[in-house]
């Protein structure tokens, strides 16, 4: 397998990594960097669990070759909480009981970030459509939608983050 040294910015930190040409971004994150917050539930791009942001856009990391996103800015779930505390989306998910088993949660939260970055004041319908590609088997989505709407409200008050 062909190997290359590639540069990435992952969670605002610079990385220079030896990458095999067939390695997916999810594998790179999970296996090479031990950033296991990003989950793979289906491995073939059907469930949204592996969603990360690449240059701000939501992307399925299980179906993206790592080498194809060299030089890009990659954000995973591990980037959201800071020393100051949780991201408002994370806080809203906890407050609204939007997390059960928690396996879809990282992908769901990253998708929410992308959604709210693009549309800070979504309607309930826009939220449901926005997370339409992210499957959850536990919650029935009610509390996730509540959490996202609450996050939008609190971020609006804070003037965005």
């Amino acid at each position, binding site marked *: 397998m062909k190997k290359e040294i590639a540069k990435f910015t992952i969670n605002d930190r610079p990385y220079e990594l030896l990458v095999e040409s067939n390695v997916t971004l999810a594998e790179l994150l*999970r296996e090479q960097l*031990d*950033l*296991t*917050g*990003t*989950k*793979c*539930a*289906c*491995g*073939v791009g*059907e*469930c949204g*669990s592996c969603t990360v942001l690449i240059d701000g856009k939501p992307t399925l990391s299980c179906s993206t070759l790592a080498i194809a996103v060299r030089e890009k800015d990659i954000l*995973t*779930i*591990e980037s*959201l*909480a800071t020393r100051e505390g*949780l991201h408002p989306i*994370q*806080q809203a*998910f*906890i*407050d609204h*009981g939007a*997390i*059960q*088993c*928690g*396996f*879809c*949660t*990282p992908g769901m*939260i990253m998708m929410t970030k992308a959604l709210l970055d693009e549309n800070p004041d979504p309607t309930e319908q826009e*939220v*449901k*459509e926005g*997370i*339409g*590609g*992210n*499957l*959850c*088997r*536990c*919650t*029935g*989505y*009610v*509390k*996730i*939608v509540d959490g996202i709407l609450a996050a939008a409200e609190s971020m609006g008050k804070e003037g965005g983050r």
Partner: protein
Amino acid sequence: MGEELTIVGKKVPRWAAFEKATGAARFTVDFKLPEMLAGRLLTSPVAHANILKIDTSRAEKLPGVEAVITFEDVPNKLFNPNKMDMCLFDPSGELPDMYVLSDKARFVGDKIAAVAAINAGVAEEALVLIEVEYEELPAVFDSLEASNPGQPRIHDFAKNNIALTFPCLANRGDVEEGFKEAHVVVEQTFKSSKQHMCQMEPTTCVADFDASGRLTIWSMSQHPFLHRRKLAELFDMPVGMIRWKTLHIGGGWGKYGSFVAEPVCVALAKKAGRPVKLEYSREEDFRTTETREAHIMTGKIGVRKDGTISALQNKVVVQGGAYFTHNSNATNVAMGCFASLYTCPNVYEIADAVYTNIPVSGGCRGYGNPPAMWALEQLMDMAAEKLGMDPLELRLKNTKKVGEFGPANYALETSTFDDCLRLGAEKIGLKEKRGGRREGTKRYGVGMAMFMHVSGSIGATQHRNVHLKFNEDGTVNLAAGCVDLGQNIHGTISQIAAETLGIRYEDIIIHTGDTDTTFFDQGMHASGGLFQIGNATVKGATELKKLLFERAAKMLEAHPEDLDVKDRWISVKGSPDKGVSVADVAKDAIYNYEDDHNHLAAKGSYSPEDNQPPVGASFAEVGVDTESGEVNVIKLVIVCDVGRAINPQTVESQLEGGASQGIGYALTEDYTINPETGYLEADNYITYKIPGAADMPDMEIIQYEKPVSTGPFGAKGVGEAAMVPIAPAIANAVYDAVGVRVTDLPITPEKILKSMEAKREKI
């Protein structure tokens, strides 16, 4: 009780929510050990075949391959992966008919061989190099066909592929007499489907033998203690040589009530002499692991002129697939629920568990109750129509009263069926909306279904334990052997402990997931967790509080019985200025060098003396497009008597989640098997469609609270309840809308159009 509760009944954050929200929570699939190998499975591509030869030599020679195993490398012992035989008082029902790896393929997906290699890529490459020579045999996929004479035999011992014939334990009276008494009799065959659990975490297991030969296993098991014993028996090891650990688990709903990856993983680790992580792909998870129990039920109901039920009959064919697993237990529950929802003097049910060459059925959320209600709650509506009685009235005529018996065979302490039915009917607007509003090609309707489940199982060891100890700052370590798959059992028992001890929720530090450091717990099934472990926690925390008060009494020069504790402060009744903090007492117990060093620690053990069922009703409003056949659920109302909601947000989310699985079961989840090849066609999230956010209707969840004296703070178990009534409520609503009844799950647009066509032809 009687006093004001400060933590029980409150919405507090779920257990581990912070770790899960930040990505820090480690699941089994995230777990790594040094030197760990990647395990991969080889499964059968054909539905029925003798294996003439397996040549693993090429795979073994591939650099990086550390172990290849076949049937020759696993215990030569038949077993049943379901744990129930480890806890049942009478385990004879669950048949052992499976080997860890098989020398005969009985379905597409049957486990044939496995590889451990330095990484997943090498392991997958090695699988291709294993040469298996199959001698294909004729196969049978239809459970009704399979029991006809002359069909291919799947297991030598099972004549006509009937593994077991067994009657319902709740059979009573004389149904023939009962049907004679009836004014109307309705008989109908219903077919339920092999719903897949679709837990989001792919099935994963890690196994590691240390230098002394002691095995540590990290798996997604719902029953670490029972599975540890089962594994010990299977591999001829002393139980003490196995340590079973659980990490965060990405859902389960009964799948991990059976062994899934564990035995193969252990056999690989044993042969390789290194730790192995065996991970299933999503496709393998669909194809190879157990699904929901699936039944073909010919149900019959007799109703007297006054609306009382005179007889119920149900003949069940269990679509068990290629191996037995939970067929006996899940079907017994199904028949028991069918027999016990309503008052009825005459009941006869009998089941045939039939082998076919399709993937294995197990037990999934509701465990027999959803298929049973799919039949019974439609029969009720059919009988009501024939009798000319409102279906709500018919149900109200037959609900069980206090003192009658629930499915777990305990007398009901409360009966809230009528309240739940009336409340739900009002919320959905049953009267106003019934009869089908029309709008263009759309027809609208409403329907209902009632349910009663259990708060634990019967006839089985239900033993639970917790232990608690105070730290010197007044925090408490609560150790329990239960498993949290997302249902928040760890959070709710922490609330119970904090409430009982008079400290705060955040003072409880829970420790779980390790058979070495927790006492026996029989595991998570039958919605029994909260009822049983909650009771063990009340007992343990009450004992700990007694020790706390004894020491505090010495410090305060008071009598223990005069003490009170609230929000970490112990006071003397009637002397408001006299008191001591819980932390100071706890510190004294450890650091008072003059004293007896009696550490504040206690154990709570519980075995059920009772089991009060969650009961209620669900109501669905649907729109049906008469051109496309598509069903759109507009609104769901679920009223559930939960006893007491320990954490109302957790209860609500259990009911919402159950409802979403119910919607999928009713409408879209179609475990399609090719009728020619036995090949599972729905092996991914595109072809097997679980509900997405946009598929969810407006939901109104009503937690009806009527505490029961035997539940912890009055609570009942609600983990499975909402899954049970959704599909029949939707089916009844569809009938109200378009006048056709789909009797085999799921209710697809094609089936609706076909039924409507057939109805038009009749007219």
